[in-house]
C-alpha cells in the first residue's frame, strides 16, 4: 500500500537512520515520508477512531453533549433518502452538507479518507494481501459487476419515494453502527471483562458499556456477525468488494462526483501505459486510461505508484484531449502542445456511472414492484400489525416509522436495559428487519429514560422530553406515552393458579397510582396452610406498557404478565379503551 517506497523513481529505501539530506530529485527530506497517501492513512485512522469513540460515548454515563450519531447525520444518503420518504429533513440531518460539499468539489474523498467501513475493508485487504503486483493490477481493473451498487441505490431510492426506507440494509454507516452495536461491542466487552477478571484491571476501563449489569444480548447477533465476516472477508476475493460492488452511499457519492471540480489527471505526454497505477487503485477507476470519476475513491495510490510522474490531482483538467492532439498516436507522431504523446490511450475521463439507461429503468421498475411486496406482507401492514412489534417511546406511527427508521440501531446501543432488540423477520418482515422493538424478556423501558429518542438521527423515535414521555406539565392533558398494554395470564400466575404468593409485578410497577392492583384473599392451601394471596389485575387506563412487570415476573420463560402493542399511543387506530382516548 502507501507504505511501500516509491517504486522505480530512483529513491533509496527509507533507512532507519534519519537523514535530513534532500532527495535526489531536489525535493526536501520530509517529502519522503510526508506523502499525501500517508496523510490519508492518518485521516482514515482519525475518522475510524472518532467513529469508535462516538459509539463508546453512546451510553448514559458518557453521553454528556457529544454528537453521538454524528456519522449518521453527515451521511448524505440518510438525509436524501429520508427527505424522499418524509419530505422533510429531520433535526441535524442538514449536517449532510458537510459531506456533500467536499464531494462536489473533490469527488468521493469520503470513501477513502473518512468512511470507517471503507477503512476496515482497505485494512483487511492490506493485512491479508498475498498477491504479486501483476495479480494486483489485474484485480484492480474495472469490471461491469461494479454497476451493481448503482442498481441497488436506484432500487432503494425508488422504495424510499414509495415510503419504504431500506437504505439502512447496506448504507455503510448504518451497517457498521448496527454491526458494532449488535455483534462487536458485546464481543469486545466479553473479552475485556474476562481479561479484567484475570487481574488485568486496566481492561475494565476500556469496556464499551461500563456498569452494564449483565452482558448485553441481541436477537440474531450471529447473523449480523456472520454478515460482517462475509462482507469483510470478501476483500480477499475482490479487493474493496463491498465498496465497489454493494455500497449505496458510494454509489450516491459517485453520482454526485460527476460534477466534482478536481480529479486525477493523466499526462499522456508522460504516461507509458505501464499500468502500475492500477497496483494500489482502491476504487478500480481506470487511472491508466479514461478515469471513471464515479469510481475513484481519491486514495492517491496511483499518483504514488506512477514511475513517470504522469498522474496528478488537478483542478478542472481538460475533459478531452483528443481534439488537441496533433498527428496519430498509432505511428508515434502525435504531439500535445508541442510535446510528443507517449501513451497510446487518449481517453482522460468518464464522468457518469457506467450504467446503461435501460438498467436505470429496470432499477426503477424493481423498486416499484418491491414496495408492495414489502409493505403488503402482513407483519408491517396496518391490517395485521404484530403484537410484539412494540416500538420505543417517542416513535411515530408504524407507517411513518418505516419511512424513517434506517436500522442503524443506535437506539439499541444507548438503551441501558438492553430491552431494545433488532427486529427479526418473524416480527417485522423484511421491511422492518433490524428495526428496534422491545423485548421485555430481556429488559424493560426505564421510566425516566429517553435516551433512544436523543440519539435517533432520523426521527423514527422523535426527540422526546421526559415531561412528554410521562405526560407531565404541558403534556398532562395528552397523558403519558404508552408503548402497549400488559395482560395477565392467570393460568401461569403464581397467586392465581398455584396458591403461591408473589406480586413482584405490582411492586415494580412504576406508575402512580400503580397500574397493577390486587384482590387480596386469605386462602387455605392444599396442605392446610393459610396464605394471603394478592391476586393481581390490570388497570388498563394506568398501564404505560413499560414491561417491567414482564421482565421481573418469576415465570421467566413465558411470563405470566406480558405486554403487547395494543393500546400504544403513537397510532390512534391501535387504542384499546374507549375512554381516555387521546390524540397522540
Amino acid at each position, binding site marked *: 500500500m502507501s507504505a511501500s517506497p516509491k517504486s522505480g523513481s530512483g529513491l533509496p529505501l527509507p533507512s532507519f537512520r534519519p537523514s535530513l539530506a534532500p532527495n535526489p530529485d531536489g525535493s526536501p527530506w520530509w517529502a519522503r515520508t510526508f506523502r499525501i497517501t500517508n496523510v490519508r492513512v492518518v485521516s482514515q485512522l482519525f475518522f475510524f477512531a472518532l467513529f469508535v469513540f462516538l459509539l463508546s460515548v453512546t451510553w*448514559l*454515563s458518557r453521553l454528556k453533549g457529544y454528537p453521538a450519531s454524528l456519522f449518521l447525520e453527515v451521511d448524505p444518503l440518510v438525509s436524501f433518502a429520508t427527505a424522499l420518504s418524509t419530505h422533510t429533513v429531520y433535526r441535524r440531518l442538514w449536517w449532510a452538507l458537510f459531506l456533500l460539499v467536499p464531494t462536489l468539489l473533490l469527488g468521493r474523498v469520503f470513501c477513502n479518507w473518512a468512511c470507517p467501513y471503507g477503512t476496515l475493508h482497505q485494512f483487511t485487504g492490506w493485512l491479508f494481501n498475498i498477491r504479486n503486483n501483476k495479480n494486483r493490477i489485474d484485480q484492480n481493473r474495472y469490471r461491469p459487476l461494479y454497476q451493481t451498487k448503482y442498481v441497488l441505490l436506484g432500487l432503494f431510492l425508488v422504495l424510499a419515494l414509495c415510503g419504504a426506507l431500506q437504505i439502512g440494509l447496506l448504507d455503510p454507516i448504518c451497517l457498521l453502527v448496527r454491526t458494532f452495536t449488535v455483534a462487536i461491542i458485546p464481543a469486545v466487552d466479553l473479552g475485556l*471483562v474476562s481479561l*479484567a*477478571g484475570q487481574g488485568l484491571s486496566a481492561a475494565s476501563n476500556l469496556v464499551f458499556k*461500563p*456498569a*452494564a*449489569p*449483565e*452482558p448485553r444480548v441481541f436477537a440474531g447477533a450471529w447473523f449480523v456477525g456472520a454478515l460482517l465476516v462475509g462482507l469483510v472477508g470478501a476483500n480477499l476475493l475482490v479487493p474493496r468488494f463491498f465498496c465497489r460492488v454493494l455500497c449505496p452511499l458510494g454509489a450516491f457519492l459517485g453520482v454526485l462526483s460527476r460534477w466534482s471540480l478536481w480529479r486525477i489527471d493523466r499526462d499522456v505526454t508522460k504516461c507509458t501505459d505501464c499500468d502500475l497505477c492500477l497496483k494500489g487503485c482502491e476504487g478500480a477507476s481506470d487511472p491508466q486510461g479514461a478515469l471513471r470519476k464515479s469510481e475513484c475513491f481519491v486514495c492517491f495510490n496511483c499518483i504514488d505508484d506512477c514511475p513517470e510522474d504522469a498522474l496528478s490531482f488537478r483542478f478542472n483538467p481538460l475533459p478531452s484531449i483528443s481534439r488537441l492532439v496533433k498527428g496519430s498516436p498509432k505511428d508515434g507522431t502525435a504531439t500535445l502542445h508541442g510535446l510528443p504523446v507517449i501513451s497510446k490511450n487518449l481517453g482522460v475521463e468518464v464522468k457518469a456511472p457506467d450504467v446503461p439507461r435501460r438498467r436505470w429503468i429496470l432499477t426503477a421498475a424493481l423498486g416499484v414492484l418491491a414496495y408492495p411486496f414489502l409493505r403488503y406482507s402482513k407483519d408491517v401492514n396496518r391490517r395485521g400489525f404484530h403484537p410484539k412489534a412494540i416500538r420505543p417511546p417517542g416513535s411515530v406511527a408504524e407507517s411513518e416509522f418505516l419511512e424513517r427508521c434506517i436500522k442503524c440501531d443506535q437506539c439499541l446501543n444507548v438503551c*441501558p*436495559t438492553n430491552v431494545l432488540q433488532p427486529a427479526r423477520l418473524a416480527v417485522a418482515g423484511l421491511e422492518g428487519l433490524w428495526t428496534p422493538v422491545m423485548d421485555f424478556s430481556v429488559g424493560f423501558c*426505564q*421510566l*425516566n*429514560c429517553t435516551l433512544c429518542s436523543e440519539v435517533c438521527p432520523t426521527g423514527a423515535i422523535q426527540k422526546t422530553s421526559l415531561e412528554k414521555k410521562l405526560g407531565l406539565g404541558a403534556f398532562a392533558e395528552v397523558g403519558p406515552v404508552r408503548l402497549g398494554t400488559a395482560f395477565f395470564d392467570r393460568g401461569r400466575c*403464581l397467586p392465581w393458579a398455584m396458591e*403461591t*404468593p*408473589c*406480586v*413482584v409485578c*405490582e*411492586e*415494580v*410497577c*412504576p*406508575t*402512580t*397510582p*400503580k397500574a397493577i392492583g*390486587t384482590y387480596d384473599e386469605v386462602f387455605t392451601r392444599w396442605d392446610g396452610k393459610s396464605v394471603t394471596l*394478592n391476586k393481581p389485575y390490570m388497570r388498563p387506563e394506568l398501564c404505560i406498557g413499560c414491561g*417491567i412487570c414482564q421482565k*421481573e*415476573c*418469576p415465570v*421467566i420463560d413465558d411470563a405470566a404478565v406480558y405486554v403487547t402493542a395494543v393500546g400504544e399511543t403513537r397510532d390512534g387506530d391501535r387504542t384499546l379503551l374507549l375512554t381516555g382516548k387521546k390524540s397522540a
Partner: protein
Amino acid sequence: MNEDRRRLLKQLGAVAGLSLGAGYVSLAPSGWPLSLKDPDGERGKPRGTSLRLPEKGFAVDPSGVLPHLGVARGANVDAMLKAAVDAIGGIHRFVKTGDVVLVKPNVAFERSAPLGATSNPEVVAALVRLCREAGAAEVRVADNPIESPAACFARSGVQRAAVDAGSEVYLPTASDFRMLETPGATHIARWPFFWRPFQGVTKVIGVAPVKDHNLCRASMTTKNWYGLLGGRRNQFHQDIHGIIADLALMLRPTFVVLDGTRVLWRSGPTGGSLSDVKEGRTLIASTDSLAADAFGWDELLERKGELLPAYFEKAAARGLGTPDWRSTNVREIQVG
C-alpha cells in the same frame, strides 16, 4: 535406504507418542498429573466457590449501658446524624482509624430524591463524611438496584453525593457476584452476593429510607440488604417475610441509619408522586435494625397499633433484634 528407515522410525515414533499420550490423559486415575479421566461426568461439572461473611457479622461489642436507638429530630442532616450516632456511642465506637467501611443505601429505583423511593443523598453524604472524619481508610457505597444501576445512582443523586463526600461508588456487573453461604437461612442458604465491594471490608453501615411496601408492608433497614443479592430475586416474594428474616441473619451490620427525612407512606416501594411522600425530619441510628424498623413503623409510617409485619417476629425469634423498641434503651434528641 538410510533416509527411508529414518523416516519410518520418525513416523512410528510420532504415532506411538501421540497414542500413548492420548491414552495416558484419558485413562490415568484422576489424581495423577495431567489426568483428564472422568468416568461418571462428575469431574467435568463446574465447581463454584462460595464464601461466608464473618461469624459475628460486622457488629462491634455490645454495650450494657448505651442506648440501642438514637433518634434525632430536626432539619440539619449533618447535625441530626451526628446527634443520633452520638446517642448510641458516637462514631468512634464503630469506626476506627484504618477501617474499610461499606455504606449500603437503598437506590433500588430511578427516582429523584424528593420522591422518597431511595435513600436521601444528603444523609448518605453525611454518613460518608462521618466515617471519613472517624478515620476510615476507605468508604464504599454500593447497591444492586432493580432498574439500571448507573441511572438509579445518577437520578437519585446518591452517585454525586457519595463521590463528593469522599467515597467510591460500586455499581454491580455480572462478574461481581459470588455464592454466599448463610448457615441457618431458610431460603438463601446459598445465594449470589454482590461481593466485589465487600473485599477487605471491616464495617458495614446500612442507610435505608422509610417506605411503604406493597407486599411486606414496610421496607426499612432490614429489607435494605435485599440490594446486596443478585440472582433470581424475583422469587423472594413467594415468602417475603421469610426472606427478610433471612436477610437479617445474613448481614449483621455495624449499625444502621433509618433515614426518616422523608417518608414514602403509600404506593411503595416505587412511589412516583410527591403526594406519596411526607416530611419526616427524623434520623435514627441503631445497633438493632428491628428496633429501628419498629420505631419507623410506629412513629414515621404512623401505623402504631397495627400488627407489625410478620418478618419482625421471624427475625426476633432468631435473636436478631427487639421489635418492641419501647422496651429498649432509647434516646431522643431535638436538633436545632
